[in-house]
């Protein structure tokens, strides 16, 4: 096998093995309900994580996505409450804002040569601050269109559902995989991750690509916000706190290097599923206190990373001196 695919294969193998172990302990976990839930419940995280994957592949990071999700939700709820606009129009509007917001951060990162960590951290403060200013209350969305969209699902045998948002996540992943691996833009993203200076000398349009990457991440964070608002039928400024860290964890568990330039969008999907599996397992267990829940999540995270390292180590037969 091409050594490039080893991390991906390792992640998939680990996921399958872990799922099998869970089923051994709780046979119920094989039900289509659990599988459907895995998709639906992680839809917003998955969509945001696709954007995060691109950012991380390019060697950057985007800490603003959780706040953008919250902002999007509040924006939609507030606008729907106060105007007669159709939700679809509002969606387009908010996607535009989120994309612009991302593009702006990308432009600052590129043109002012500031580290993404800090620019997007400030972006996080700003987006959440704007959500607060729009409304500190949690605002319900009562538009009938929401009900229509939610009624739209595919019923699996056994009571599980592939919902609209779960399906949307899969679509976004498909599109993400296509963009990352089959377009010039995707190749440029990897190129940036390999080294900005070198990429520039090789003729990669660095400015355009950087801005596009963060705009894309903003767009997907906006989409994720829409999904979240569908998921909860509300907009709430305190929603989705810390989602960026979950997304980063999913991306990394999916085998992408935080240093950029190496990884797969498809891996992120597995990363998301692994994180979802951890949570499902913990609820199925149901005996853990709040603190043991945290400790176990940490340990499982560690375990997955360790297993991945082990796989890589075995497959490479040792590594060059760091």
């Amino acid at each position, binding site marked *: 096998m*091409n050594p490039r695919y080893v991390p991906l294969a390792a992640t998939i193998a680990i996921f399958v093995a872990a799922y099998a172990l869970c089923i051994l302990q709780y046979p119920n976990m094989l039900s289509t309900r659990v599988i459907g839930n895995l998709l639906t419940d992680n839809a917003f995280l998955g969509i945001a994580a696709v954007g995060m994957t691109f950012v991380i592949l390019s060697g950057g990071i985007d800490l603003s996505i959780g706040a953008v999700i919250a902002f999007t939700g509040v924006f939609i709820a507030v606008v729907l409450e106060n105007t007669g606009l159709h939700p679809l129009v509002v969606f387009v509007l908010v996607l535009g804002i989120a994309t612009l917001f991302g593009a702006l951060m990308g432009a600052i990162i590129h043109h002012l040569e500031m580290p993404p960590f800090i620019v997007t951290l400030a972006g996080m403060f700003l987006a959440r601050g704007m959500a607060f200013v729009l409304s500190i209350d949690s605002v319900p969305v009562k538009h009938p269109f929401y009900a229509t969209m939610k009624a739209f699902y595919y019923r699996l045998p056994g009571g599980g559902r592939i919902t609209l948002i779960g399906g949307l996540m899969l679509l976004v992943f498909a599109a993400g995989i296509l963009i990352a691996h089959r*377009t010039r833009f995707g190749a440029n993203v990897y*190129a940036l991750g390999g*080294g900005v200076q070198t990429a520039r*000398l090789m003729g*990669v349009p660095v400015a355009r690509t950087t801005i596009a990457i963060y705009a894309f991440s903003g767009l997907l964070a906006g989409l994720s916000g829409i999904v979240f608002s569908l998921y909860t039928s509300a907009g709430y400024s305190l929603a989705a706190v810390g989602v960026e860290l979950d997304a980063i964890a999913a991306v990394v568990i999916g085998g992408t290097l935080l240093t950029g330039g190496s990884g797969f969008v498809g891996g992120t999907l597995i990363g998301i599923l692994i994180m979802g599996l951890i949570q499902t397992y913990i609820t199925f267990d149901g005996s853990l206190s709040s603190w043991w829940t945290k400790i176990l999540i940490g340990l499982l995270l560690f375990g997955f990373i360790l297993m991945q390292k082990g796989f890589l180590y075995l497959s490479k037969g040792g590594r060059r001196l760091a």
Partner: protein
Amino acid sequence: MPGNILGSEDIILSATGIDKVFPGAKALNKVNFQLGRGEVHALLGENGAGKSTLVKCITGAYRRDGGRLVLDGVDIDPRDTFEAQRLGIGTVYQEVNLLPNLTVAENLFLGRQPRRFGLVDARAMNRRAETLLAGYDLDIDVKAELSSCSVAVQQVVAIARAVDLSGKVLILDEPTASLDAHEVEMLFAVVRRLKTQGLGIVFITHFLEQVYAICDRITVLRNGQLVGTREAAALPRRELIAMMLGRELGDEIKTVAKAETEEGPVRYRFSGYGRRGHIAPFDLEVRKGEVVGIAGLLGSGRTETAEILFGAEKADSGSAEIEGKPVELTSPRAAIRHRLGFCPEDRKVDGIVGDLSVRENIALALQARRGWARPIPRAEQERLADQYIKALDIRTTDREKPIRLLSGGNQQKAILARWLATNPEFLILDEPTRGIDVGAHAEIIRLIENLCEQGMSLIVISSELDELVAYSHRVIVLRDRTHVSELVGEAVTTAHIVEAIAAGEKQGASR
């Protein structure tokens, strides 16, 4: 001023009055440069003369501070390399500038991947990459990541990419630094072909034989200023060197009869040393004051031999002895404690610490050996730095300049200085003269000879056989990651080495 030898309709690229100022240094001062159609034009000068800077100004990698660029009769002002590429200027920059995390094929076609229905057609891309590289006799897996290839392979890939990109102008900044004779010949064949197609080719190198072998005209820079442009055929080597250095140079390489290999006691003995999958077990003995050369083709395992000796890669078989006492050389630290030194081949990745100053880079290894608790006093560091800046003629505005801002050759010298500062007894040099100008080249070879006269033992890896022959008491020839033969004393000649490599090749072929 010369330069009007060609008629203006024959000029494909003309740069006039190019200025470039860096904080604290004027790198280019009103430089004129004219490149003809179907011409190979050498751009020469000492380390730090401004060659790479001029190239980068032409390709838009740097914004020039003044001057005019005309390509094919049209004024151009490329804002970035992307634009230059579109205009038909293909470039190989000095340090291999490819992306280690992409595959060979992706590197070759970055930005211009073949597409089907708007999507990148990976299969077609890989196929075309294979055909392209076949033209350079390179039969490698184009789907492998570039980082898994040796520096030399990367260099060939970079060349292939630039050549493929260049519609009008091809710029090669020290493309041959890590290539051996065979690859160089191949490159020249390509260059000649392009020449007949009417391309203008800029060729930067420190190998003067190569200049005379392929170049039509020569432009010389010194300290950021144009010295002049001449017909290669009408410029004797001695005069060229004088143009570059601004002074006469004595013998370039003193092929002095080296002191007979004293049959002194063996100081370093490695027996059965090897590492599976990297280098086959070998025996090696080095005496005090002896220079052992290592020769071989690309990828023959020379660098791996060096790394294993220094502990940068752990040996998994065999043992090492110093003066009869067994030692463990399992890490660079351990090796340094036994007074070994190692000047690596890939200076950008393994050598320089870019943001540290020249002074700190020179003091680094010595400081590491003394341990953190005993800092080298600032004054002492400055003395050390000044001493080596002078001794090795490192061109820098001052010793506090971050080393990444130095020109390539000068970085190489600073790394060498880092090791000399530790006063090693056994120094391993992997391609020490790569990218170093004629003047400094001679300096370094003289230095090597001095060092071994003072009793230092040396292992030198070099693709330049002439050079290797000049100072080695003994030469070990590698093939396929195996030590295949050893030439001693009188037998150390270029012809013999080539023969040993070739014999190995025949042997390999018959296997």
